[in-house]
């Protein structure tokens, strides 16, 4: 049986981020390339943050998914360049994040600047859609998220930071 590249991409859509299980690695935009050669598959991924502890688990899960698809050899390579950015997150992924209660990354960002004491990014509350929110902490439950609170509905929520 011949396994197509398309089938590999479909299988990869079942591999989720262990820290944000609602997002697949396709939604996150971390799969950079897939090559299939008979019973051999090579998947190239890029880490979100260099120290992201989820990367090793993601690599192992990719191998299990593709071995189950019928491959004999699955290689997962990591590349760093070009560096991952939240711009690579799919629109579908952003919608899933919001439905899950995490505010998706804004399009334009200010985190990558050296400017000191800048106002916090305006982030929309994923629960009541108000923009009247404030940042509690630059880091939330993981390095990629900040902790915000909505001043309208008072709910505390994670914001997936621009990167």
């Amino acid at each position, binding site marked *: 049986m011949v396994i197509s590249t398309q089938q590999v991409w479909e299988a990869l859509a079942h591999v989720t981020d262990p820290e944000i299980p609602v997002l697949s690695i396709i939604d996150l935009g971390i799969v950079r390339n897939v090559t299939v050669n008979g019973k051999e598959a090579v998947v190239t991924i890029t880490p979100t*943050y260099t*120290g992201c502890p989820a990367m090793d688990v993601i690599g192992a899960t990719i191998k299990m998914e593709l071995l189950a698809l019928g491959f004999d050899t699955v290689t997962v390579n990591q590349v*760093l360049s070009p560096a991952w950015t939240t711009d690579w997150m799919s629109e579908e992924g952003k919608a899933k994040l919001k439905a899950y209660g995490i505010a998706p990354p804004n399009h334009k960002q200010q*985190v990558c600047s050296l400017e000191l004491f800048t106002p916090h990014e305006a982030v929309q509350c994923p629960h009541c859609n108000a923009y009247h929110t404030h940042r509690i*902490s630059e*880091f939330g439950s993981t390095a990629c998220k900040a902790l915000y609170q909505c001043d309208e509905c008072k709910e505390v929520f994670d914001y997936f930071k621009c*990167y």
Partner: protein
Amino acid sequence: MTHRIKHILHLADNALILGHRNSEWCGHGPVLEQDIALTNISLDLIGQARSFYQHAAILLGEDYNEDKLAYFRDPHEFLNCLMVEQPNEEDWGLTILRQFFVSNYQYHLYQQLQHHPDEQVAAISAKALKEVTYHLRWSSEWVIRLGDGTEESNGRMHNALQQLWPYTTEILTPADYETGFIDFSLLQEQWRQKTTAVLAEATLAIPANETQQTGGKSGNHTVHLNDILAVMQTLPRTHPDAIW
């Protein structure tokens, strides 16, 4: 060992040792948000160290790997600057100032190294730069808040500055394995400019004392590195075949 490999190990060791020092604050930070901020900075640094060790291990070949380079080298084989191994002394101000000095250095260094002829060094540097930009912004803001803060915080920052200043020359002076790849006069200029601006806003005066300590980049360390390695390396050296 070639200059290229030594240079990569130097970059990795700087990131690992500072990451480890910062991680000692985990659960002990003055406020929860800043405890988490510093812990995340540690995670970035250890991630960067890991990337550099992996690359060095490939270049070294044989049976080298990232763990062997981090856990099975002795103090004299580490090539980090003396600055990063200095103890926290349970002083948040000292930790913040050390982070500022190193982030200021790494930020301008990686801007150059992202164009390094070794593609992997360039890729790691470009990736690290995104993270170090945040570290520099965060530490600059805190140096200013604490320096230009209360009498107590200003006094502590003043003491921290006296303590750390003697280690600043080493980070800006090229080792033999660094020459040719980095424009050190540019790096020194950029580092001094940023340092002067932030310290001025923090109402802290640059110490007049010109006595400087060097040696870390060539493997001559302070006793503090032994303490770190004793903690960090005990488990893998006691149980070398242990797997996670």
